[in-house]
């Protein structure tokens, strides 16, 4: 649980230097997560960061806390199991667009409608970067990549709209060029009770030469700067989620208030499962046996 003293940022840095390409957007996400943990005064022992496979999924190894660098597409499932086992942990999922919106899409949708108290940070670079530049589920239509030499013919996934219809209760979008802003979104996402999605524009400086830092810098604006925008209003959030082109919103799209899965699970009323005693008391065992008589 949260400690009282604010930790220096180094507290959250592992001994391993990130091996991302210089300039990779994922550096900004790592820094933002460190700042968010610092802001929330989280103890490193209570942070559990789960990732899948991909460049961005290397993140847990660069962060000081507990975690699992799991299988391609399965981070959300592993994180869900860990959260159900010990809901005292702050469980954060980190990964890329291929991992979360491609191979792991099924878990993503079901975790949202389940409303487990998880925070999912997707480093969305609109490309398969680790495999050197093929079209991903969020690659724009027409984008020429190694696997789409005549231009991508598939429409991209819209993560924010998808999260809205799937029941996520905290939906935000960050940009690696705005690390402090993103850190606030992540911190609020972790503090939020329920499933939080923070989709992040995290440019791949090596394999996506279209959706670059300058491309985003010219377009993004913060929803917080729009005084009329109300993130409690799902309809406005839905409209905003389709805004794409010359102007692209970042910030908090939607925040709702629903009971979490953990709070609805009767077996967890007595506290985290991991702290509950193992085994069956004799009288409970006998009453179970009686059901068969």
């Amino acid at each position, binding site marked *: 649980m949260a400690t009282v003293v604010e930790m220096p940022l180094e507290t959250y840095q592992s001994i391993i230097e990130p091996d991302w390409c210089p300039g990779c957007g994922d550096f900004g996400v790592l820094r933002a997560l460190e700042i968010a943990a610092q802001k929330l005064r989280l103890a490193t022992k209570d942070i559990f960061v789960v990732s899948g496979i991909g460049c961005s999924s290397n993140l847990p190894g660069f962060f000081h806390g507990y*975690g699992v660098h799991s299988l391609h597409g399965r981070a959300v499932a592993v*994180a869900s199991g860990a959260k159900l086992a010990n809901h005292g942990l702050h469980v954060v999922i980190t990964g890329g667009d291929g991992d979360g919106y491609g191979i792991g899409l099924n878990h993503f949708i079901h975790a949202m409608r389940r409303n487990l108290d998880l925070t999912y940070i997707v480093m969305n670079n609109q490309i398969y970067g680790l495999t050197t530049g093929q079209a991903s589920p969020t690659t724009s239509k027409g984008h020429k990549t190694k696997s789409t030499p005549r231009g991508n013919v598939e429409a991209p996934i819209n993560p924010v709209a998808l999260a809205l219809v799937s029941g996520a209760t905290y939906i935000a979008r960050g940009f690696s060029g705005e690390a402090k802003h993103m850190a606030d979104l992540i911190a609020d996402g972790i503090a939020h009770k329920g499933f939080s999605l923070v989709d992040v524009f995290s440019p791949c400086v090596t394999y996506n030469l279209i959706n670059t830092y300058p491309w985003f810098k010219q377009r993004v604006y913060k929803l917080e700067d729009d005084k009329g925008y109300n993130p409690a209003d799902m309809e406005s959030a839905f409209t905003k989620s389709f805004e794409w082109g010359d102007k692209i919103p970042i910030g908090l799209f939607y925040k709702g208030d629903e009971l979490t899965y953990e709070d609805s699970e009767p077996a967890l009323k007595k506290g985290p499962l*991991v702290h509950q005693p193992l085994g069956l008391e004799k009288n409970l065992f006998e009453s179970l046996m009686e059901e068969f008589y």
Partner: protein
Amino acid sequence: MASHGERCGVVVKQCEDELAVVNMAIGAGHAGVRAMCATSGGGFALMTEGVGMAGMIEAPVVIVEVQREGPSTGIPTKTGQGDLNQVYGASQGDFPRVIIAPTDTADCYWTAVESFNLAEKYQLPVMIISDLLLSEHPETIEPDDLRHDVPIERGEMVADWPGGNGPYKRYACTPTGVSPRALPGTAGAEYVSPTDEHDEEGIVISDVFTTPPMRRKIMEKRMKKMDGVLKELKPPQLEGPLDAPVTLIGWGATLGVIRESRALLAARGIQTNHLHIKYIHPFHAAEVTAILRKCKKLIGVEGNYTAQFARFLRAETGIGVHDTILKYDGEPFEPAIIAAEVERLLAGRPLNLDVSVEDAREMAYHYIRTHLADAARPTEVELADGNSHGEPLWHVQVVDRSSGVSRGQLKIGVRTGSIYAWEPVAAAAQA
């Protein structure tokens, strides 16, 4: 189970797919609870990548695979033993894991207890391979066969890790291969478990610098755990007279039916003994080899087409069975079937796979259900010359179910089982 969750301190979750199931179970096991999931053959196929992950990150998890009759969707309402190859071969690479085939209902209870203990002590996936018959049949057992005070062994755990200890090594290379486990939430022992190959601290060695000697030692550390597991498992023992002319070899849920078939055979003056295998992996190769070397005619009994266990036995011991009794029609073995097959083998008669009169009648019922609106039934079955079909035929007379008036006859190939022709009464009269 779900309705007992709150009382028993169990979270039961049905998920979107088996990928979620196994990965959630692994996440839960990694986080420190006892986690288990269950599926059948198709679902287990989806789980296999997760099995390897549990082996790699050394997460305790118990996975139950209830065999039905495959391949593919197969006969999902019926039983079989055709998934041994799949369970044994699950996931890429070599990694420590345990495979246990429980033998009866009470044994399932104790197998679950043992599986959780092994999974936690050795930090690995334990697969329980059952079958539909064992998992879904009702049976009366003695209440005293089950007890509440089961042994709970969680293995070596690290409760805290004070600053002066140096870095906590989640995957410390130890003589036993078991690295004391700190659960997430333990102060001072933070680590990340990667599915990539890693060093003692969990730092990946899979990219630019793969450090071959470190990879070698961490592989050896993980695999060494299997030595410890094997020592904990009770070796199989031969039942029945040592000098019996026939040894029946079975595995898993056929224990009871093989015992009963031996009693039938004994009543007919045929002595047999019986070696039954519960622990598939790790395998008691030395003990089983020593037993089988002293046996005479080895007959493998199992519910699949290719004698998967016999092949496995040969791989583990170099000993091949002399004969097999195999069943793959979805129905469980019956004592009389095994006994008759043993008698046939002893008499040196060849295996007869022809369609019997009873088979022909059952196949006629299928035809009547699907093509005659279930309004008829078969009566006489006669053997006839096949003429142009190149094999003898069963001529099955079919009559109206209520009036008994002839509807026609079915022609079924004795060897192939092909339903060559349905000849309604009018057409038959014309011919």
